[in-house]
């Protein structure tokens, strides 16, 4: 199963500008599978992204809304994108600033639908 996950993650990392992609346990913020996380600490990406998504979900809950289906954290030198896969997993990508966000989002959603 891990080989399948890694294969699917490689679809995401093939998008130009994607530095790495992973599947993360949403509650614990632990890596489930990862691909091409060059120069990036996978455990840190997992923990920090799960933290942001979880915190955002509580904010949307307070606003009377449903939890996020897509999250895009944009910074000066890169981005984090995350899509929940069911209730327990997140599909996450770390990207360069000039990446085609639409394409990455498409690939993240495809994988999330497959996992859910």
């Amino acid at each position: 199963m891990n080989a399948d996950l890694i294969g699917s993650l490689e679809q995401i990392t093939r998008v130009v500008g994607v530095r790495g992609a992973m599947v993360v346990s949403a509650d614990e913020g632990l890596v489930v599978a990862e691909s091409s996380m060059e120069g990036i600490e996978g455990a840190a990406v997992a923990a920090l992204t799960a933290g942001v998504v979880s915190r955002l979900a509580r904010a949307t809950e307070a606003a009377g809304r449903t939890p996020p289906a897509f999250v895009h954290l944009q910074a000066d030198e890169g981005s984090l994108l995350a899509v929940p896969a069911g209730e327990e997993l997140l599909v996450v990508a770390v990207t360069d600033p000039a990446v085609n966000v639409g394409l990455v989002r498409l690939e993240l959603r495809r994988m999330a639908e497959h996992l859910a």
Partner: protein
Amino acid sequence: MRVIEPWVADPLQRFLAESSARLVLLTTSSGQVVAQHGFTRALDVMSAAALGAAIMASTDELGRLTASGASRALSHQGPSRGLFLSGFDLPQGRWIGLVVYDRDSSLGLVRLFFDRLVGELKGLAPQETPAREVLASDFENELNASLRSLFGR
């Protein structure tokens, strides 16, 4: 937060700020308390220190019996809080960290920042001191002395 070893204070403060942990206890493997945060009663600290040391010791023993090696970290998830227990080696000997967190944090975040805390402590720890054999009376005496220091009594 209260610490007995002053050089622990800054790294522990950073760990608390980053991890949003609710309770933290650092002890030697013999149960001497080095620092704590979040505990309000000496009895709780005493119990947690003793239990943490015992759990790490028995897990290490289990690892030895099953040839899986000394344990590095354990975690437990309760209904509303999680618990993380980890041993690490310093020049002074083996220490144990016990961290309790709630939904403001996660196991991943606690592990991430605990690893960084250990790295910082290793960098700041004073010169190696010779290890000494721990006797049961020493354990209790040291624990009591630590508790008095931590709770200002």
